[in-house]
């Protein structure tokens, strides 16, 4: 019923895999409206995460995610490092000491992570950043859980919302981050950070898809 640390490890490994796979793609998105390093940075970061979480895979979920956050802060650099680093640090803090993570716990942790991202980066919705993927996704996860959906279902729904949010960055003019230097020339391009955030939600949903579900509820 509850999400285990092992599943979260699975998430991080899946996410690291997708980042490695999509490194050139993410970097290409960033080259168009930034400085062409987002994929490189995230890949360096998640390769570090894979090493750094090795000793804490059997610890509680909080320790796992805080270790992930520290690894990202110390290896990614750029905008992605503090933002994703803060996301995992805050999410980890919310799960401090927990080894069995309830649906509600997980959603709260994601919310705490997002709050950290917004505090750190001060981006508003529609500024064409990762916030545009994270915000609707986490709101959707919360709503679905409140409706009684399984965590797998809720996250699958959240990943869809993240994808929509990601695509929604295309017509936007960037107001934060490096892309904002481009002004109107940023319009028409998909934001790289929103893209990597979508991958984060998608891999989380994949990792939790096989979660044995507790109370079955109507899916709508």
């Amino acid at each position, binding site marked *: 019923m509850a999400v285990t640390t092992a599943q979260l490890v699975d998430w991080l490994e899946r996410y690291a895999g997708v980042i490695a796979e999509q490194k050139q793609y993410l*970097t290409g998105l960033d*080259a168009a*409206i*930034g*400085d*062409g*390093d987002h994929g*490189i*940075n995230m*890949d*360096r970061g998640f390769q570090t995460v894979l090493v750094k979480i090795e000793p804490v895979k059997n610890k509680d979920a909080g320790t796992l995610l805080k270790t992930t956050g520290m690894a990202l*802060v*110390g*290896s*990614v*650099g*750029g*905008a*992605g*490092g*503090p*933002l994703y*680093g803060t996301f995992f640090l805050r999410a980890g803090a919310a799960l401090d000491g927990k080894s069995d993570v309830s649906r509600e716990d997980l959603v709260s942790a994601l919310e705490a992570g997002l709050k950290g991202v917004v505090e*750190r*980066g001060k981006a508003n919705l529609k500024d064409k950043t990762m916030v545009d993927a994270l915000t609707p996704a986490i709101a959707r996860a919360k709503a679905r859980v409140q409706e009684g959906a399984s965590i797998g279902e809720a996250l699958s729904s959240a990943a869809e919302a993240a994808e929509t949010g990601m695509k929604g960055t295309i017509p936007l003019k*960037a*107001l*934060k*981050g*490096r892309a*904002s*230097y*481009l*002004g109107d*020339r940023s319009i028409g391009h998909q934001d790289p950070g929103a893209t990597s955030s979508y991958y984060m939600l998608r891999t989380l949903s994949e990792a939790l898809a096989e979660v044995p579900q507790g109370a079955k509820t109507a899916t709508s």
Partner: protein
Amino acid sequence: MADVTTATRLKKLINSPESEVKDALAGMAAAHADLIRVEYDPNVIIRKDPPKKGKVGLVSGGGSGHEPMHGGYVGLGMLDAACPGAVFTSPTPDQMARATKAVDGGAGVLHVVKNYTGDIMNFEMAAELARGEGAKVNAVITNDDVAVQDSLYTAGRRGVGVTVLLEKVVGGAAEAGYDLEKATALAKKVNANGRSMGMALTSCIVPAAGKVTFEIADDEMELGIGIHGEPGRERTKLRAADEIAEILTSTVVKDLPYKRGDEVIAFVNGMGGTPLIELYVVANAVNRYLQKEGIKPARWLVGSYITSLEMAGCSVTLLKLDAETTKFWDAPVHTPALRWGV
């Protein structure tokens, strides 16, 4: 990243994209053993002669690939430490925290941060860490790039050429005994009095990316380029150096604006792949424009001081001088890349 190194070797004097920054740091350590020492993991370049107790520490940092900035400016009368990130990527907070700790002589530390979201956030996290350990830390943000529209609602202007001049001026003041508040105020003034704009003829290649950051036709140039090859204001046809220099200089002049009678430092910077002879051609046109406008270039700096790997192009920076700024610009400096008076 092995795909890049093994498949096609880049036309670069490197061993691998992964090792470039550390290899270069080791080269710096060897060549400038009298001035600096280098620590690895986290990577920090620190002044060799420990600053005297009571001196404000000056720390900067940013992505690598802009050499000599910032590591080349560590030494007497300029920076106390510099934190090199991966190529074109802000360093991480552990680097700045270590640098801050290493150079804190009790009078506090000033962080010189270029206005990029990543740099700001990483320096902020570092400052939080350092303050957590009891250090006094201020930060000054440089944002002198007139190519970017300024606005309260955006990330604002990029920090470029003024950063170099600021590090020299404030470094001189710190060496002369300015306290943290006075040094911070001077730094803000220098940033407020400086403006820059750049252009590129060619793209650079980030080693880890393995290909040009932007495509540009043989008859085109990018006006208002950023120092990471970020697209600029406008893609236009190539023009004569005199016209390019006039576009850059007039845009800079009108922005502050610099006025008849002002004295300035005129800084003509090469982007890394442009030879010095061309920078002097540009300097000539900048000089002519300033003379025409009655602005006096009382000091000059011509060379490749804030670069973008092998990008060809240049930038023009003006910094309005007053007695305080001039005094500390002229003060002795002894670093790998700037040296006078000693």
